[in-house]
């Protein structure tokens, strides 16, 4: 558990009072995202990469593609693994060392969205059944933490996968995989988008920034696929939502997810 950033009581009250009146300290509306900027393919050594900034939050995702063994219970499927690093340079709260629960949760929520929406057709990443498959390593690298790491990371992961290429290969004697020159794009079938809302004094706001995360009672993330179905949910924080708030959050998230998807997929 990272130590909470201290927000003074005055600021706490200011944030809450503004929200109660439908406003926010940084001038946004309650369901308005910060400015989103996406840079694609900036790491040449990686098979795919993207850097997404959401206001002052910056997340870089690099995708590496390797060849390895499939899981024994899924011999005909490629492997997707998502890992996240809260790099110490990103925040005074982050420390070097093995991943903590926050980092693990972040990676697992991003993973769940990609996996459950079947965005990557893993069965198409099988090379020799039971022996060789493509392994897609998605590494989430947080570079500056100013709140809402989940949405930023999910967008960066999707943007990075969308420009990921996998190498051409041929199989010799049904055993050896030979890499041939040239690449083809990684197949992507779905575009999951995570939308996080924070509950502050009974009000819901989207895309909480760091100070709002400090003040919030709880957060909830809905990940929607391209057909408007929910493919992952995660509640976080030591507070609660009423059932009515959960359903309201779902409706807001569904709407916002379409808006964000356009930016990530088409933009």
């Amino acid at each position, binding site marked *: 558990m990272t130590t909470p950033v201290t927000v003074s009581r005055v600021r706490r009250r200011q944030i809450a009072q503004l929200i109660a009146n439908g406003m926010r300290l940084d001038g946004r509306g309650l369901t308005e995202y910060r400015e989103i900027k996406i840079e694609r393919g900036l790491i040449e050594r990686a098979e795919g990469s993207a850097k997404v900034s959401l206001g002052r939050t910056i997340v870089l995702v690099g995708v590496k593609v390797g060849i390895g063994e499939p899981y024994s219970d899924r011999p005909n499927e490629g492997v997707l693994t998502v890992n996240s690093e809260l790099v110490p340079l990103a925040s005074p709260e982050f420390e070097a060392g093995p991943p903590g629960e926050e980092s693990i949760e972040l990676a697992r929520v991003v993973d769940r969205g990609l996996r*459950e929406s079947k965005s990557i057709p893993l069965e198409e990443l099988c090379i020799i059944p039971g022996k060789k498959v493509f392994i897609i390593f998605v590494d989430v690298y947080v570079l500056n933490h100013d709140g809402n790491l989940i949405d930023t990371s999910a967008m960066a992961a999707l943007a990075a996968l969308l420009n990921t290429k996998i190498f051409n290969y041929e199989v010799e004697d049904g055993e050896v995989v030979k890499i041939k020159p040239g690449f083809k794009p990684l197949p992507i079938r779905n575009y999951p988008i995570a939308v996080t809302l924070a509950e502050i004094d009974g009000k819901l706001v989207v895309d909480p920034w760091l100070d709002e995360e400090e003040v919030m009672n709880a957060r909830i993330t809905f990940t929607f696929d391209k057909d408007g179905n929910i493919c992952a949910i*995660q509640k976080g924080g030591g507070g609660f939502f009423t059932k009515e708030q959960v359903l309201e959050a779902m409706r807001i998230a569904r709407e916002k997810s379409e808006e964000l998807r356009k930016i990530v997929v088409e933009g």
Partner: protein
Amino acid sequence: MQKAPVRLIDEEGKRVDGREWNELRPIKIEVGVLNNADGSAYIEQGKNKILAAVYGPKEAHPRHLTLPDRALLRCRYHMAPFSVEERKSPAPSRREIELSKVIRESLEPAIFLEHYPRTAIDLFIEILQADGGTRCAGITVASLALADAGIPMRDLVVACAAGKVDNKIVLDLNDIEDKEGEADVPVAFMPNLNAVTLLQMDGTLTPEEFEQAVNLAIEGCKRIYKMQKEALKARYLAIKREVEEQ
């Protein structure tokens, strides 16, 4: 190797273990089962067998973790190596670390942590046998262990999952329904406060199905809540009897 299609609901609408869509698995709860712990409880839900124990409020170690204005709640959700089909390494997995976090966050809103500043409350949940829905049964039993430790709470937290199996929304998924089904929605709830304290989902659901699933899960929570209270009462009636006999 094509997986044989699994039928999880038969022609008569019965599930693999013979239940109806809105039926809970048999539940057995016992409070106060361990001597050393300040509070403890045990639950069986289907083939799930789960122990929870609470130590504290007590001095927090290491000291730098103490919070000036409230107690520190620490939670460890852990699966025994023999609790699942294939032996699980006893080292905490990423899944267990995530679950420990969300379980802690599901219980925090219930506890008057501000009554015990600078202390720690340690909660241990041991999954002795897993049969799907362990996080939910773990929360249900953990809040009883907290109550048994005499820690003041706003309400008991109770948890239950609903999900989608063979295209139908069903209550309290077992292991095979969880693995083969289309979606799983665990919910933790404080009935007196209408408070959802844990909500997760994996799988795919339309917004309408999600709403149904949440409603059904909360319905399940309310039923388990009654059993929780019975178990707690039984514990105190037993103590009362013991005292009267002396």
